[in-house]
Every structure is written in structure tokens, then in C-alpha cells.
């Protein structure tokens, strides 16, 4: 693509200036072309110079940076784009600002005439337009909305974004100029807009993370943002997991998960011919006519297609991402690392030739729709061979110099030289394909009440949770055309046993602990009522009185059993799972304190004197409590300190801590139970006195 083509094809979004104004030597394009000494010819080949090849800068003018494009809310992109299509670059800013009407077209060779709207000017001929310091959100979305949908499933609407619902603007998080926080971009007239750090984008990587991140508002209270208090969450989580991971549990609209640029897709209403070669598949790995939807519905009316994000590690943290999978024909060059690619227009023409005459590049007929989704896909060895063979023929026919080169087919990290021979190239841990971008999700943040974790640890650490076990696409197609999946935890580099232990802890061990609490409370009630009757009751305590205390204890337990099958009532009457999980430190400390008291009482009852170790060892109940206390203390300390060097041990300590609590509670239950059954029946008060 030449610089001139770049203006025509990409200038609708790009605000002008830079490469839309100056050539690679920093000279203004139109000045060069109008200079008789330059030797440039309007519309000529101009020595195949990429800045001037077939360009008419002298007539079109250049596209200066158009300030009003961002700073005038009423700016008309459509009026500007109309001028771009007509190659009236010089006039685009004037009509985009609605200051004048323009007639004529450089492209069509019609003289361009301009008529200003005088009503916009005061009597001195001066202008006082409606311009704003901070561009409106809609202004940014004029360019960022469509790619945001395709790449990230971004909706950018108050309905699905808590920040937009609160009335924030893009520039509140992406500040620039005097209002930026970061010194790298701060300064009058500096227009480096605060940016994040997307794995799929490398423009000005030196300015990564100059935008306001979550902590700048939700820790410091900027713009009166609510302070995020995660005191209930074990600190290990915030060290390893990005805010977005929990606060973007779902994406509102589809994103492209797989882009195949190797076959001609059957979509309708695709606005540009070449885009028929971009065959998209959504997060469900079903064919998605993205450009057709965009053409028919537009961005504002895109359909709701919620899906769960994939999680990947990027720079030591887990983020929700869209990892793009890719398939495309490439060109391998002898002695060179990396790949080139054929012109997409050549691939398109090859397919069109085949579609018009099936004897042209007839090998392409071998490429079938193996999964019956209505779209052909390349996945079997003979299909790979067919594409390589057909494209090689096409390129040879067009005179493309293939000496020292060969056509390959690339699927994610596999470079196929034939259907049965491929080379695997290395990837970053967050990538699904070295040739497909990875996009972090940051927009469309859900309210805190909808975040992962509001239902307790089980939101992630349970067998029903997608966090670890969700199927993640590993390869777009197997030989039958079906996607190949792997569990999410593999992508996160976790071992199955460590994930299973977490599941066991949250799905089984903690519920057991909480049930044991109920058993303990019930037994304690039996014991306490018995003791109360003994102290406060009639002089003679009979068996029926003991029975009364048992009835009370068992009733409490049965009520709990009933509640277990009536979850809403359970959460109404008892602490919720979230409350229990979020107060796990307090719960654990309480268990340890009660366990210590029970241990001391029991030891004193058994042996008023003697060796402590022997006393503990001689009583099973005491052993259970003592071991539990020791292990819970040790694991608790590791959890609180969570040393980086002891990663596996830290993770294990969560399990050990809960196992220890179970051990302590079991020991206490046995102590209380023994107290109950060892009480003498009947007890006659008068005998005691």
C-alpha cells in the first residue's frame, strides 16, 4: 500500500498529520510534487517511490492534522470521508467541520469549489465554534468502536460498562496533555493519549501504561470513585490476577476468535471484495459474517452474543483476553527466518478464477466443508496440499518470482510445507498463534456485584466453574473440522493436581467444615442444655430431661439439613458462603481459639500433671486438636506471608489450613460428645450437695 492509498483507505479514521502530510524524508507531499525540480509527475509512477507512486498530492493536497475531528462534537465524519473518496484531501477538514459546502472531485477531474456558510462567522469574519477540551466518548468511538467489536467483543455502552453508566468519558482514563498523570505524556499541546499495554499492539510501547489504571481511581479515590476494598480476598490473588479478570466475567458481544485468510467465504453484504477472504469464527467457533453484520446492522445495533473470556498469563498476571487463532497462506524464503505473505489480492483472484471456472486451479475443489457449517475450511492434509499447489500455480502464472521461495500454509504455530510436513514455531505463553494478535479486555467492566467471587471462592474454585476447567480452543480444526480444545488451567500453566486440590478444598473440604460447625453447635447445645438443667433445673434430673436436650440439638441439626435443600432460606437464616469465605481468617482464628480451650480443658481433666507430649499422645481427641493447631498455625503464617519462592508450598498451605481446621473441629466435637455421654444419669442435685 502506498502512502497515497493509505490516506484513501485508512484516512477516514486517522486524524491527519504525520504520514498523511509528510513523506519519509519529512517533506510535505504537495510541496514536493508542485516543485518543478522534483521530477514528480501527478499520477505517474514516480520511480516506484512508495510515497509518490501514482499519487496526485499536487491536486489532492495533503491531510493536515484535523483538530476539529476530535475537538468539535458536531464534526461530520461522513462529510470528511466523502471528500477523501473524491481525493479532495485539502478540503476534508473544512467540510468535516461543516464550515463550507464543497463541490467537485479531484478523482473525477472536476474542479473543486467551496462555499463557506457565512452564518458560522461573526461580523469581523471570525469564528467561535463549539469546541471542547475533552473529546466526547462518541468522538473516540467513531474510530475505535468497530475494531473494538471485532477484536475484543467491546460494546462501549452504558448497558454493559459500569464506567460509561457512571458517565465517565474515554479521556477520564486516557488523559493527554496538561491533564495526564504520567510524566511521559504530560505537557501543553502534547497529544500522546494515555495508553494501556495490549499484547497485540506495539505502537509506542515506551508509553505503555500511561493511562489511568483501576488503582489510580479505586485506591486513591480520583473522581470520587468507590474505594475497592478486597480485604476479604487472600492477598495471593491480587498479586497474580488483574482486576479485569474478575470484573469482566463476560463479554457482551461477539469477537473474532479465529481468522482464516485462506478460503473464500460465502457471507453476504461483505462491503469489500478482499474481505471475502477474511473468514471469521466467533468465540463459539461458529462461522461469523462480521462484516455482513456490520454492513446490515451497524455498530449501534450489533446483536448481543455474550461469551466467557479466555484467561491467559501476560507479564506475570492473569488477564481476560481474546487470543486470535489464524490460518493463512505464507511464503517461506530460503535462508530467512520468518515468513512473507502473498498479496491478498492474488489469493482473492485465484479463488475468483476457480469460482468462475472450476478447471482453473482445480485442486481447490478438494477443499471441502468437513464440519457441515456451510463454509469450507482447510484442515486435512490433502486440502493443505491443494491450497499450496493452487497458489503456487497462480503465482507462477502471474510471474511472481518464486526462486528460493515456496508457498506454505500456516495454521497457528504450524508452518505446513505440505499436508504432512510442518514446522512448529515458538509462541509467547499468552498467544494462540504467533501470527494472530492477543487483545486484553479492559472495557465493558461489570459492576462489583456481578464480578467473579461474589458467591464466594467457589465462583472459581469449584468443579462447576469455568475459571479452570472451561474448554479453550487450542486449534481451530481437527481433521473432521471440529475445534480442538484444552482445559483453561493448561493455558494458565497450572498442573491438574494443584487445580484439583483447590477444587477439593472449596467444593468438599470447606462444606465439610461448615457442616461440622453445625454438628458441633448441635452437640454443644445438647451439652449446654443438659448442664443448664443440671444447674438450674429441679433437684432430681431424670432421663426425660436429658432427652429434652437431645431433642433440641437434633432439631437444630435437622433444621440445617432441611435448609441445605432450600438454599435461599439457608442464606437468609445463616451466613452466606461469601460471608464465610470472606471471613475465613476470623473463622479459622475462632476455630483455633476454641480448639486450644478444648485441648486445655481435656488435658487438665485427664492428667493434672506429667509430660505434656505424653498427655497429648495418649488421647486421640487431643492429638487431633494439637496436630490441627500446629498445622493451621504454620500454614496460616505461610498464607499471610505468601513468599514468592515458595509458590507451590503457599498454594498447598491453603489446603493444609482447611484440613487442620477440620481436624480441630473434629477433635472438639469428640471432646464435647464425650462430655455429653459421660454425664451421669440420673443426676440428683441433692446428692451433689
Amino acid at each position: 500500500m502506498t502512502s497515497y492509498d493509505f490516506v484513501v483507505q485508512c484516512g477516514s479514521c486517522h486524524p491527519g498529520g504525520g504520514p498523511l502530510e509528510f513523506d519519509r524524508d519529512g517533506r510535505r507531499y504537495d510541496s514536493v510534487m508542485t516543485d518543478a525540480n522534483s521530477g514528480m509527475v501527478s499520477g505517474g509512477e514516480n520511480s516506484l517511490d512508495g510515497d509518490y507512486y501514482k499519487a496526485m498530492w499536487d491536486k489532492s493536497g495533503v491531510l493536515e492534522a484535523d483538530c476539529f475531528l476530535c475537538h468539535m462534537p458536531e464534526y461530520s465524519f461522513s462529510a470528511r470521508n466523502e471528500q477523501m473518496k473524491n481525493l479532495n484531501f485539502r478540503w476534508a477538514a473544512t467540510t468535516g467541520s461543516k464550515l463550507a459546502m464543497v463541490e467537485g472531485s479531484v478523482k473525477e477531474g472536476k474542479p473543486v469549489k467551496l462555499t463557506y456558510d457565512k452564518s458560522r462567522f461573526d461580523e469581523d469574519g471570525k469564528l467561535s465554534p463549539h469546541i471542547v477540551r475533552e473529546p466526547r466518548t462518541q468522538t473516540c468511538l467513531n474510530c475505535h468502536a468497530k475494531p473494538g467489536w471485532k477484536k475484543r467483543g467491546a460494546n462501549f455502552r452504558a448497558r454493559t460498562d459500569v464506567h460509561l453508566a457512571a458517565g465517565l468519558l474515554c479521556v477520564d482514563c486516557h488523559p493527554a496533555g496538561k491533564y495526564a498523570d504520567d510524566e511521559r505524556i504530560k505537557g501543553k499541546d502534547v497529544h500522546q493519549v494515555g495508553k494501556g499495554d495490549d499484547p497485540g499492539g506495539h505502537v509506542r510501547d515506551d508509553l505503555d501504561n500511561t493511562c489511568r489504571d483501576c488503582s489510580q481511581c479505586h485506591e486513591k479515590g480520583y473522581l470520587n470513585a468507590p474505594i475497592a476494598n478486597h480485604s476479604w480476598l487472600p492477598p495471593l490473588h491480587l498479586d497474580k490476577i488483574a482486576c479485569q479478570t474478575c470484573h469482566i466475567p463476560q463479554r457482551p458481544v461477539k469477537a473474532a476468535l479465529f481468522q482464516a485468510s485462506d478460503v473464500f467465504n460465502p457471507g453476504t453484504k461483505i462491503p469489500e471484495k478482499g474481505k471475502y477472504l477474511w473468514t471469521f469464527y466467533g468465540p463459539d467457533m461458529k462461522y461469523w459474517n462480521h462484516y455482513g453484520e456490520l454492513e446490515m446492522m451497524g455498530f449501534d445495533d450489533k446483536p448481543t452474543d455474550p461469551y466467557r473470556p479466555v484467561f491467559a498469563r501476560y507479564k506475570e498476571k492473569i488477564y481476560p483476553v481474546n487470543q486470535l487463532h489464524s490460518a493463512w497462506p505464507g511464503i517461506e524464503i530460503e535462508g530467512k527466518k520468518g515468513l512473507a505473505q502473498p498479496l491478498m489480492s492474488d489469493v482473492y483472484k485465484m479463488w475468483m478464477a476457480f469460482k468462475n471456472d472450476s478447471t482453473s486451479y482445480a485442486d481447490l475443489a478438494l477443499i471441502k466443508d468437513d464440519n457441515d457449517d456451510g463454509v469450507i475450511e482447510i484442515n486435512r492434509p490433502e486440502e493443505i496440499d491443494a491450497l499450496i499447489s493452487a497458489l503456487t500455480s497462480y503465482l507462477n502464472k502471474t510471474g511472481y518470482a518464486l526462486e528460493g521461495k515456496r508457498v506454505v500454509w500456516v495454521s497457528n504455530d504450524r508452518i505446513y510445507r505440505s499436508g504432512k510436513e510442518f514446522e512448529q514455531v515458538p509462541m509467547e505463553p499468552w498467544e494462540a498463534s504467533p501470527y494472530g494478535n492477543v487483545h486484553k479486555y479492559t472495557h465493558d467492566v461489570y459492576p462489583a456485584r456481578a464480578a467473579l467471587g461474589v458467591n464466594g471462592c467457589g465462583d472459581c474454585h469449584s468443579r462447576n466453574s469455568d475459571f479452570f476447567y472451561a474448554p479453550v480452543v487450542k486449534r481451530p480444526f481437527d481433521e473432521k473440522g471440529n475445534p480442538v480444545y484444552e482445559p483453561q488451567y493448561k493455558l494458565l500453566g497450572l498442573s491438574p493436581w494443584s487445580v484439583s486440590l483447590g477444587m477439593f478444598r472449596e467444593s468438599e473440604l470447606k462444606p465439610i467444615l461448615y457442616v461440622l460447625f453445625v454438628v458441633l453447635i448441635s452437640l454443644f447445645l445438647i451439652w449446654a442444655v443438659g448442664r443448664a438443667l443440671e444447674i438450674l433445673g429441679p433437684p432430681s434430673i431424670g432421663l426425660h430431661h436429658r432427652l429434652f436436650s437431645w431433642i433440641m440439638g437434633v432439631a437444630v441439626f435437622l433444621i440445617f439439613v432441611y435448609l441445605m435443600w432450600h438454599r435461599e432460606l439457608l442464606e437468609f437464616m445463616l451466613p452466606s458462603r461469601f460471608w464465610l469465605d470472606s471471613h475465613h481468617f476470623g473463622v479459622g482464628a475462632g476455630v483455633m481459639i476454641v480448639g486450644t480451650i478444648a485441648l486445655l480443658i481435656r488435658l487438665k481433666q485427664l492428667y493434672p500433671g506429667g509430660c505434656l507430649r505424653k498427655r497429648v499422645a495418649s488421647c486421640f481427641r487431643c492429638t487431633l486438636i494439637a496436630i490441627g493447631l500446629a498445622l493451621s498455625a504454620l500454614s496460616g503464617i505461610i498464607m499471610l506471608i505468601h513468599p514468592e519462592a515458595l509458590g507451590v508450598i503457599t498454594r498447598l498451605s491453603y489446603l493444609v489450613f482447611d484440613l487442620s481446621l477440620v481436624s480441630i473441629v473434629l477433635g472438639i466435637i469428640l471432646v464435647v460428645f464425650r462430655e455429653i455421654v459421660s454425664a451421669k444419669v440420673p443426676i440428683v442435685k441433692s446428692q451433689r450437695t
Partner: protein
Amino acid sequence: MITKKVVGLTVLSALLILWSLCISATQTPSVSWSKETIKKTSVEGVCPPFFLYDETGNIIDPVKEINSDKPYSPKQTCGKCHDYNKTTEGFHFQQGRGEKPNPLTAERCLWVTSPGNYGGNW
């Protein structure tokens, strides 16, 4: 004996109060109204009525029909007060022009000449 208990309980209570004060101090949200949050309004914050200028720097006055057949030049018009060159250094304007692709992209994709859309990835 009673005095010892009273002293002990007093010390214990004091420690508990101190502990709770420490806890509450760490948990109370602190909103600092620094110069970052209260922005100073400066006189240059509002553009006065201004003339449009064409590419050669001449005033366009449609009311008096002066140069009123010329499109206005943002560079000449806004550039009278604002540093156009500094502004257009922004990556939104440059689109990767003048930047080298990051090493991994350059190694993988031979056609990529910049990290941005200009000479960039696709």
C-alpha cells in the same frame, strides 16, 4: 490482687483500642484533594474568536469575501496558538511512522515495517 487485675485489664484494653485504631486507619478510604484532582483553570483554556487561515497563512474571511474560495488549514489556523508539530508527534497522528517493529514481530513477519497501521501489521 485486685490492683494487678485492674492494671492488667487496663493495659489489655489500651492495646485493643490501639489495635482497632490501627486497623481502621488502614481501612479508611483516603481521598486526597491534591493538585491532580482540582485542576487549575488557565486563561488559555478558552479559545477566543479566531480567523481561519489558508495553507499559505492568509486570512480567510467569508463575510468580506476574502480568500473565501480556499479551504482552511488546521495547521495555520490552530497552529497560531498551539504547537502543531508537538501535537502531531502523538501516535494517533504518526500511526507507527518512524518506529521500528518490535523485534519479535520483525523476526516473524517479514512484511512488517512499523508497529502501527502505517507500514504495519496487515
